[in-house]
């Protein structure tokens, strides 16, 4: 099988190049194409190299999969991108677990090494599958987006993990005992759920990235089951690069990965906000807000999830275009974890044809707030919460934030006074220079633009 490995290595090289190109805005689209060619090569190599394949079955499976996958990919709204990635990822993890399970049902002798790798694939694959679906459910609103925490949760998880380890060991020693195999599947599935439900809010993206890394690990361990270099190399690549990306995201929030997974941010905050002092806010109409915009010279727009929910990316662009024609300077401040996924806002604003060089990231934009007249916060909350800077008891303490409060005026658009997704009350809303304009982001922006034109 010498030549097979050469083709697999070639596919892996294309994956590496693809990921590299995906890391730069100019080459990103080409990178995705490069990687997909790598995938095609890997698939064709497998079809040619392995004899006795059930080609009809494969064709049926691939056609069904391609129809479902493309239907999802074409119809999904840009705002739903995080849950889309989660669900695709779940299928990938599920596939690895199924392959390992299929190998287990194969009659004949299985070595203990293969059995251990089967157990690992089933465990990681199933955990990825159920975890991703919970993440999907949370983002889509089928499951509560808030962290679900109950007393003894960590102990229960530890018990599950121990049972899992014991069943795996028993399975490797007594492969004839199929019940251990079922126990392994069930426990992995449950653990995927119980590890994901306590995570919520701004931490969701990290979880998706972590699950993505897991699905790579699952693929690599399936590679060990089947002794297939293509799977091992590519799975290891995704597993490792996914870990690094997860780490980059954690750093963006100034948190450790352990803190994200076991911290359950969101629940503690409710008690914190309960004891917190009442915040009095000033609520303005769009007409009054329009007058402030009219007098401003430099405006920084801070988009958050509220913009995504309201599908307000086009309305933002229209208003910004108008302000620019009036000779005003408009910038966009993008926090690394704004929205439900890192880069989520960039994708949405790009959809509305806002050039990406107008979007400024955290380090670049923070000095700009000093001489900014109006910071317009659209449905963002945690990423502009000054508690991250000055409240040691706040769960988000230490997270780098956008310094909107340094602007002359902060106009905050929110639907209601409810705290954000992470459930944290925001003292910014009560600041001297803060003004609230309530309402759906899209409606508010359209009304604001109308009022601006009438001035």
């Amino acid at each position: 099988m010498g030549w097979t490995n050469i083709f697999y290595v070639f596919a892996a090289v294309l994956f590496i190049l693809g990921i590299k190109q995906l890391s730069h805005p100019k080459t990103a689209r080409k990178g995705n194409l490069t990687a997909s060619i790598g995938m095609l090569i890997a698939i064709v190599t497998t079809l040619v190299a392995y004899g006795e394949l059930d080609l009809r079955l494969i064709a049926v499976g691939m056609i069904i999969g391609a129809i479902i996958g493309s239907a999802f990919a074409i119809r999904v709204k840009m705002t739903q991108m995080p849950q889309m990635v989660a669900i695709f990822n779940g299928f990938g993890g599920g596939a690895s677990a199924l392959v390992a399970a299929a190998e287990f049902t194969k009659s004949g002798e299985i070595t203990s090494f293969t059995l251990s790798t089967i157990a690992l694939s089933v465990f990681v694959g199933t955990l990825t599958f159920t975890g991703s679906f919970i993440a999907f459910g949370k983002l889509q609103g089928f499951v509560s987006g808030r962290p679900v925490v109950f007393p003894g949760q960590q102990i229960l998880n530890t018990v599950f993990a121990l049972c899992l380890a014991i069943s795996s060991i028993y399975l490797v020693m007594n492969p004839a005992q199929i019940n251990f195999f079922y126990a392994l599947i069930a426990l992995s599935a449950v653990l995927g759920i119980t590890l994901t439900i306590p995570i919520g809010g701004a931490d969701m993206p990290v979880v998706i990235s972590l699950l993505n890394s897991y699905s790579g690990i699952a693929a690599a361990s399936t590679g060990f089951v089947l002794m297939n270099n293509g799977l091992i190399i590519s799975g290891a690549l995704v597993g490792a690069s996914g870990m690094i990306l997860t780490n980059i995201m954690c750093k963006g929030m100034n948190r450790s990965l352990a803190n994200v997974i076991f911290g359950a941010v969101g629940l503690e905050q409710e008690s914190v906000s309960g004891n917190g002092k009442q915040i009095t806010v000033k609520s303005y109409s769009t007409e009054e807000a329009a007058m402030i915009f009219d007098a401003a010279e430099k405006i920084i727009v801070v988009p958050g999830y509220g913009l995504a929910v309201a599908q307000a990316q086009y309305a933002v662009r229209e208003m910004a275009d108008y302000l620019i024609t009036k000779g005003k300077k408009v910038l966009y401040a993008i926090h690394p974890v704004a929205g439900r996924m890192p880069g989520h806002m960039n994708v949405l604003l790009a959809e509305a044809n806002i050039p990406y060089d107008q979007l400024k990231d955290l380090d670049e934009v923070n000095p700009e707030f000093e001489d900014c007249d109006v910071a317009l916060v659209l449905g963002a909350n945690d990423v502009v919460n000054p508690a991250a800077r000055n409240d040691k008891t706040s769960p988000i303490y230490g997270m780098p934030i956008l310094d909107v409060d340094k602007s002359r005026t902060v106009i905050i658009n929110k639907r209601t006074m409810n705290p954000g997704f992470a459930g944290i009350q925001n003292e910014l809303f009560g600041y001297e220079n803060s003004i609230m304009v309530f309402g759906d982001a899209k409606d508010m922006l359209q009304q604001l633009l109308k009022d601006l034109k009438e001035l």
Partner: protein
Amino acid sequence: MDINILTVFILAVFVGFEIITKVPPTLHTPLMSGSNAISGIAVVGAIISTKIGGEIGTWLGLAAVIFATINVVGGFMVTDRMLKMFKRD
């Protein structure tokens, strides 16, 4: 176990650690989505698993092919859809 296969695995892990260093936050979502599509490499395993005999094995193999193909096709398409929108002035 073949020591070569372990060598390959460890080297691939190191390459994976090294390829992602400085990624602008703009590209985090597409990058995650793109590498997610690559993790659909499980499709290779799924294809091989269809030759594993037995009725249960066949059904598991078919399900694996469907799942992995959803991951691959959906993943690459959705990433392209996102990246198509990134433009400069």
